């Protein structure tokens, strides 16, 4: 604009004094108090909280319950115990990152395990095909949730509250409210129990299911952080309108998220057969809420767009560590439930505090 230095700048009369004003206002403001600094660090790395809590709880229970708790055997057992809820939490994380919630994850999982069992054990269909049918069914159940949320424009909470009942009723009908016994699975379709196999390393008993959980988390982490799809998932959860205006087809992203979550539930269904040893329509009835618990403790914001899926893995492990540690310390089960309740409340309170960070 002005090639002659010092030439009167085109501007408003009232702005002429701006040249002398403090130019630092647009610069980054530094906070000084250590608490504010901590708030900033946590804001940038929301997964730090569950990591710290996990390490602290491991150390505390080690101190209380001793080497019996902090043994390779017990730690691998904790992994095994949280593997199914962990996978459900992975599915739940995807949905919570989009600012949604899925109350039907465990119902989808148990429904798919019943379908896999019925096909492979009673109808003599090869296990591999039964499992693939379950995978397709899981994605279809997720698709149904996604269509209701995007096309019929129902809130995710209400949608999945409804489909939870629908899928639960279906699984009771398909199973006749009867379990499929482990011995029947062993004779007719042992492959369904594949993820119950273990690798023995030192004193540790690592089940294939525990490893599958880790793989599920790593794959989803990759998808969320290293692909355009993942960036779009975060953008939709962060500010759907802004994502729309940026040219993201938000409905398509949401539907895909519910489908991937349904698929992960079906993968968990296969693993759950190995974990439980049988197929019971009554199992994992509290799985929906337990998956939300793990996600929330993992520092993923229920308001969407914030948090790492790895947080849900740490969240699930924290719950497992608390249950195992309190049990070994001889504490009544009711106090385990009590402690988990406090963990949820504290986790959400910390999330709110972090979100209030001043720019």
């Amino acid at each position: 604009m002005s090639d002659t230095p010092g030439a009167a700048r085109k501007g408003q009369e009232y702005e002429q004094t701006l040249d002398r004003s403090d130019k630092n206002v647009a610069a980054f403001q530094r906070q000084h108090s250590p608490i504010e600094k901590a708030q900033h660090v946590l804001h940038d790395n929301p997964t730090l909280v569950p990591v710290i809590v996990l390490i602290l709880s491991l150390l505390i229970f080690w101190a209380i319950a001793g080497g019996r708790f902090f043994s390779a055997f017990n730690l691998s057992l904790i992994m095994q115990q949280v593997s199914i809820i962990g996978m459900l939490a992975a599915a739940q994380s995807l949905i919570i990152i989009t600012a949604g919630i899925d109350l039907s994850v465990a119902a989808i999982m148990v429904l798919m395990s019943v379908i896999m069992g019925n096909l492979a054990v009673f109808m003599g269909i090869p296990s591999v095909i039964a499992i693939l049918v379950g995978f397709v069914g899981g994605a279809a159940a997720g698709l149904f949730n996604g269509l209701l949320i995007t096309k019929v424009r129902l809130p995710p909470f209400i949608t999945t509250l409804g489909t939870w009942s629908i899928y639960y009723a279906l699984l009771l009908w398909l199973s006749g409210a009867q379990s499929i016994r482990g011995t029947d699975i062993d004779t007719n379709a042992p492959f369904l129990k594949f993820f119950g196999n273990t690798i023995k390393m030192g004193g540790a008993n690592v089940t294939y299911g525990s490893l599958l959980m880790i793989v599920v988390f790593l794959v989803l982490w990759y998808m969320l952080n290293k692909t355009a799809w993942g960036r779009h998932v975060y953008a939709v959860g962060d500010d759907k309108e802004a994502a729309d205006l940026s040219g993201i087809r938000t409905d398509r992203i949401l539907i895909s998220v519910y489908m991937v979550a349904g698929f992960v539930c079906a993968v968990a269904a296969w693993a759950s057969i190995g974990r439980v040893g049988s197929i019971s329509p009554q199992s994992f009835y509290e799985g929906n809420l337990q998956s939300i618990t793990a996600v929330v403790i993992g520092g993923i914001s229920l308001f969407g767009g914030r948090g790492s899926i790895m947080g849900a893995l740490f969240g699930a492990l924290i719950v497992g560590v608390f249950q195992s540690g309190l049990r070994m310390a001889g504490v009544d089960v009711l106090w385990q439930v009590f402690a988990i309740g406090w963990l949820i409340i504290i986790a959400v309170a910390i999330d709110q505090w972090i979100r209030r960070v001043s720019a």
Partner: protein
Amino acid sequence: MSDVTPVVQGRNLVKRYGHVTAIDNSDFELLPGEILAVIGDNGAGKSSIVKAICGATVPDAGEILIEGEPVHFTSPIEARERGIEIVYQTLALSPALSIADNMFMGREIRKKGWMGDWLKMLDKKEMERFAREKLTELGLMTVQSITQPVETLSGGQRQGVAVARAAAFATKFIIMDEPTAALGVKESRRVLELILDVKSRGIPIILISHNMPHVFEVADRIHIHRLGRRLCTINPNDYSMSDAVAMMTGAMEPPDDLRAA
């Protein structure tokens, strides 16, 4: 003026919503290299006509030509593919995502080779390099890091990111909707400088604004919109702000020679 092909031209555009006629046989044109301000009272239909141009709404009648060629956009995504960028009043940024993520939202770059083709892996390094380059070009690198979330930026810096995003990808023109409405005096000044900077790169700009001083300062021509149509287009050097306000509110008749056909 008639010998130049307008970058975008609207002819006899009509848009009705039920009984309301939002655009009433209006014309519109943006010339190469200019800043065209669009002013008008609330409800005059400024945003309706701009939405019709960028594909956010489909006009009921009339035609839109881009560099002389008729187009029929049905969504802003199609307009964007033709090099038309919009800076929304709400900015359309995702607060928790980084500056680089926001700049490439919806047009991410994948890695070359099998990592990109098969694993769909993003080329974050390249995106960050490009974003840094674009921000530096516009003198916006007061931000600490290209990976910091947008929510840690000030209002003016956010506006800067939105303008830089538009400037980086626009090849035809940029529409800016009230870019200074939410900003303080100093930040507004910065954004006006940015607008002139973008113009100096040869990209024409449609500026929708209520702020007469800002309009008169940066605009080459002012399109006055009244009652759903273009009332006239004036040169800011020939008229005062009060004339413009008088015309857009109907208190003054537009000069006959400028009256739109």
